[in-house]
């Protein structure tokens, strides 16, 4: 199979890339190779948003009504295969014929910049927001800006800039038909191929079909699979690691699908949070609300469900919910496909059941019955873009006030995302009352012996886990009681 170079639009200029170290981040490429220094490095870890750029994509529906979609990403933790078939827009590209973009004007009018270092990142987030909402609400503004840190303004002026920016046709809109044609031409040329990038003895493959992915994964069993790269890139930018061979899953169409059937959701391993949050929220608002706090919009635009699972972090937010929902996963190695319950995937700290050459193809979430109570609680120091101290996921059914079905899993409480077996046992087939809850809360201390770190102490984690169980009890049995200060839009 012949390999092809990465092709993308640098604003409106087509660029082809084949010979560059694939461990280069998009930010390094912009600042050091292209000399485009408007995009800033604030942390090189995807936490501050100073490096926010926008990727323009053609909507996946292949029809005459194809539209451009604009998503923000953190350039510091994005790799170059992310660019393939997309339009890269940076802060330098927003002015047109000497005029500032409406979001730039709005930011100036509202005095939304002080030191100005975070500003280009905010501008790009505002630009992407402006593309989806005419007059964003405060909640929409907060959602769009939750991954951009500003140390000077206190945000009020920036929120006002977001909410008052004029929404009118810009030069991206007026040239979108041409842009779509150009991007589709790249896509058409890539179907079924593998995009390859190599330099300094390192290489990366970005297969464009599941067959190619399966073949490459087996051929290069020592390679690292990378999806959104939001976690893997930290090894490059923080530990200064270099990966010999990377295989990117992000453009494998079969892995990006989100399907809802009568039985449940099937989510492709490389589907980003942004792709599945809307349908998932419609069925499970609690889950959608949690995902809105998972990372930032920039992270959710790159991060994938498969990545969150395969990364096997003890503080990943999706696995506990998937465990409580009884989700399963489909793993593929060559032509072999096997099914596994999510909870059986995690063996030990950062150790999984994934074999060499094997990859996650999709995740299946069976429908919860109408009578199931789903409770998902994320507790962290900060509301926006923070890693959980504790994440609790509970599904529960009651019959005549007796617990007829119960699944409880936690993140942040053990070396892996883990089911609370003793706690479940204390609840199962018991009266749904104070005494049962107290017994179940006590059982949590037998289930877990959490560690202390910079996010929380062991004692706090356990106390909060117990209290979250109590919160669920109060919310289900006394829905009139206000139980949370942090409410969702």
């Amino acid at each position, binding site marked *: 199979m012949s390999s092809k170079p990465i092709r993308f639009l640098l604003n409106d200029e087509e660029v082809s890339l084949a010979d560059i170290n694939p461990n280069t981040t998009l930010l390094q490429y912009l600042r050091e190779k292209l000399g485009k220094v408007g995009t800033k490095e604030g942390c090189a870890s995807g936490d501050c948003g100073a490096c926010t750029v926008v990727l323009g994509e053609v909507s996946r529906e292949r029809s005459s009504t194809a539209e451009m979609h604009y998503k923000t990403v953190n350039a510091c933790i994005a790799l170059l295969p992310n660019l393939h078939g997309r339009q890269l827009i940076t802060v330098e590209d927003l002015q047109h014929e000497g005029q500032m973009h409406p979001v730039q004007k709005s930011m100036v009018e509202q005095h939304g910049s*002080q030191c100005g*270092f975070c500003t280009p990142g905010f501008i790009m987030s505002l630009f992407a927001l402006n593309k989806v909402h005419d007059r964003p609400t405060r909640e929409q503004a907060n959602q769009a800006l939750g991954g951009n840190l500003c140390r*000077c303004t206190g945000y009020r002026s*920036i929120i006002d800039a977001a909410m008052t920016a004029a929404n009118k046709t810009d030069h991206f809109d007026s040239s979108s038909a041409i842009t779509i044609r150009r991007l589709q031409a790249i896509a058409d040329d890539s179907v079924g191929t593998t995009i390859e990038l190599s330099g300094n003895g390192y290489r990366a493959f970005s297969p464009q079909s599941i067959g190619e992915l399966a073949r490459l994964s087996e051929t290069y069993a020592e390679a690292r699979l990378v999806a959104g790269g939001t976690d893997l890139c930290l090894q490059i930018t923080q530990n200064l690691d270099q990966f010999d061979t990377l295989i990117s899953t992000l453009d494998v169409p079969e892995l990006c699908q989100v399907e809802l059937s009568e039985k449940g959701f099937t989510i492709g391993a490389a589907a980003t949070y942004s792709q599945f949050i809307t349908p998932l929220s419609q069925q499970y608002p609690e889950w959608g609300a949690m995902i809105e706090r998972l990372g930032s919009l920039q992270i959710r635009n790159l991060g994938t469900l498969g990545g969150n699972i395969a990364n096997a972090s003890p503080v990943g937010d999706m696995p506990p919910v998937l465990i409580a929902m009884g989700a399963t996963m489909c793993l593929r190695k060559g032509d072999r496909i096997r099914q596994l319950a999510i909870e059986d995937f995690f063996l030990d700290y950062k150790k999984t059941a994934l074999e060499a050459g094997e990859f996650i193809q999709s995740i299946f979430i069976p429908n919860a019955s109408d009578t199931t109570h789903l409770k998902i609680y994320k507790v962290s120091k*900060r509301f926006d873009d923070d890693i959980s101290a504790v994440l609790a996921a509970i599904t529960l059914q009651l019959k005549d006030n007796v617990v007829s079905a119960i699944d409880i899993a936690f993140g942040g409480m053990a070396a892996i995302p883990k089911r609370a077996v003793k706690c479940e046992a204390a609840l199962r087939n018991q009266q749904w009352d104070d005494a049962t809850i107290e017994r179940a809360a006590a059982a949590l201390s037998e289930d877990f012996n959490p560690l202390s770190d910079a996010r929380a102490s062991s004692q*706090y984690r356990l106390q909060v886990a117990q209290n979250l169980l109590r919160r669920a009890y109060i919310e289900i049995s006394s829905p009139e009681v206000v139980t949370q*200060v942090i409410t969702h839009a």
Partner: protein
Amino acid sequence: MRKLGDIDTKKNVGQRRGKVGQSHKHDSADKHVCGSAVYIDDRPNVVGQLHAAIGKSTIAHGKILSLDLSEVTRAAGVVAVITADDIPGHVDVGPVFPGDLLFASEIIEFNGQALFAVAASSHELACRAVKLAKIEYQELPAILSVEQAHEAKSYVRPRHTQKRGDSSSAIADAAHQLAGSLSIGGQEHFYLEGQISYAEPTEDGGMVVHASSQHPSEVQKLVAEVLSIPFNLVTVDIRRMGGGFGGKETQAAPWACVAALLAHHTRKPVKLRLSRTDDMLLTGKRHPFETNYKVGFDEDGLIKGIEIEVSGNCGISPDLSDAIVDRAMFHADNAYYLDQATITGHRCKTNTVSNTAFRGFGGPQGMLVIEGAMDDIARYLNKDPLTVRKLNLYQKQQRNITHYHQTVEHNNLQEIVEKLELSSDYLERRRQISEFNKHNPIVKKGIALTPVKFGISFTVQHLNQAGALIHIYTDGSIHLNHGGTEMGQGLFVKVAQIVAQEFSVDVQTVNVSSTRTDKVPNTSPTAASSGTDINGKAAQNAAQTIKARLLNFASEHFNVELASIEFLNGQVLIGEQALSFAELVQLAYMNRVSLSSTGFYKTPKIHYDRETASGHPFFYFANGAAVSEVMIDTLTGENKVSRVDILHDVGASLNPDIDLGQIEGGFIQGMGWLTTEELSWDSAGRMQTTGPATYKIPAVSDTPEIFNVALLPDEPNREPTIYHSKAVGEPPLMLAISVWSALRDAVASISDYKISPKLNTPATPERVLNAVSQIKLRIENSKAEEPL
């Protein structure tokens, strides 16, 4: 020049943007939003330029047995490796007192201390190379806390005491006594642009340095001393910083020195940019404090006597800690008359990175103690804390002298508090909150109004001076330079407005250029909120000098009285005729009038005698007050600030929108300090929070939905400051103490406001939950005791 340029004689006439007192955008706002504002890392690399990285220790305290850098030297791309042995001049770059070694060579004194530096062909290769050092240590016991420092009598400077009367007897004789203690966390600056410097050797053996520093003159001095060359061979240029907040007052200089040393050794330009992790490991933070107080008060809550002891965790060296702990002591009264008072401040030395200036400079920590005491007194007497606060406020004619014997003049604290109490509807909301709390077992609300009185001036007298330089060119455009640095606070636009005002021209006529030591020498740091106060005055002085020359010239040339010449909206009215500003400038040039001048300013009235702990350290006070309303979740400790009302005194504002930005930004930064921003170290003294993944500054959703911020109207500064404005950089940060106090109020509601909860800072969800648990335990215990 032989031929003057063409000028538009009508240009700008009639309308004038950026008048003093009017809002005008930041000088770089357009460039910020277009990504065209240039920060040091954005400067194009020149041929041969090198990139530097710092090698660090991995223990907190010990002897270096061997330092093997052979692999570092051999690493890909490495051009030079330097240690303390390669420094021709000073190794110690302590800004006030010795103690800050550029590189440690024998004894390691904190985890992450700089040991050597590398210059390589790229930033990445330099960072990779420093990891290859092989270091053997003999570890020594480390002092990692204030408590351990006290036990070991480990201090960076002697303690200082401020005293009035006999506090001990006054406390004993008072109707009531209380005591309390509070641990106050530090704070990482988290400027979005990390520390960075660029040094380029000159043909004279000197150095041109571009630094992200609040103190160009000190960078110049230290680079010269490290290289052992005269100061006049070093030029420091600072166009802008991507945030400073005090973190680049002294602690930007070492990186400029290292870049200069590497440039000196390689004869190549060298850029040193600290990665975020290195920045957080290598540079100091806001001082954590351990504090305690004893207070005596009457039935109404009026303080009769108080003893406050504050102990700053200074880290390993004095840096600015003497002045910082002093400022904590100067603000131990905040807005209150303390009567008989003894304030003691300790400067504890620990094996941690040397803590440094941070917006408020010790003031916030000092204020937090007395605000905590106000709440404690109120709970004890079963009163609304606001009642106790109002009772103790400084008064106008009596009870108006601080514990360091400065009279509080032009005091408007009472008016501010009363106005805000009304505009925020405090009493009604207090009632509604109590009602809410009665009916809600899980979520509790809290509210608090706290004032701020912050002293303006450097407490080190000689720093209260500033210089400026103005040129007018023959097209009428004005070039402005002054000693202040722009870190986002809007200093440049404010000073441009001041200069434009003197000549009555459009603010766009004035170009503010980068701060350079070869234009304005011997400057003070842009710090202590003084930037506009002193540099604005110096620039005004320079403008007035030139203006006087122009007036005298016009008077002579046109033969009119001085009194009938007026600069007005881009024109100069001279008797019957009107010239554009540029026309007059050209005419003056042709008649050989100097169109360039320096300006100078020194702040009057200030002095402080450390021997007697008395004086007039502050030119004036900047005041304000805030009401914060919060909600807490008693199951998890999660909390949210739902509404904030602020009334703040900036005197006659030079630029209201810029001032509002400082107030809002300062408040949110203070809120972060007191809530989510938690620094943590492991038992070996290694910092665990080395990046934004673990260190959480406020994000957009933390900004309260209702955020009413107002400038106190019609209250020009009665001291002769620049256009009677007041400094605004630091004071608003301390308005956020209202958030902490409101959180305590919410926790106290569980005890029906009878118990004042202990709540160390930052009040993370974990600390709030602990406070809730403790108060519930106390209630349980007291119930258990009752039947007996």
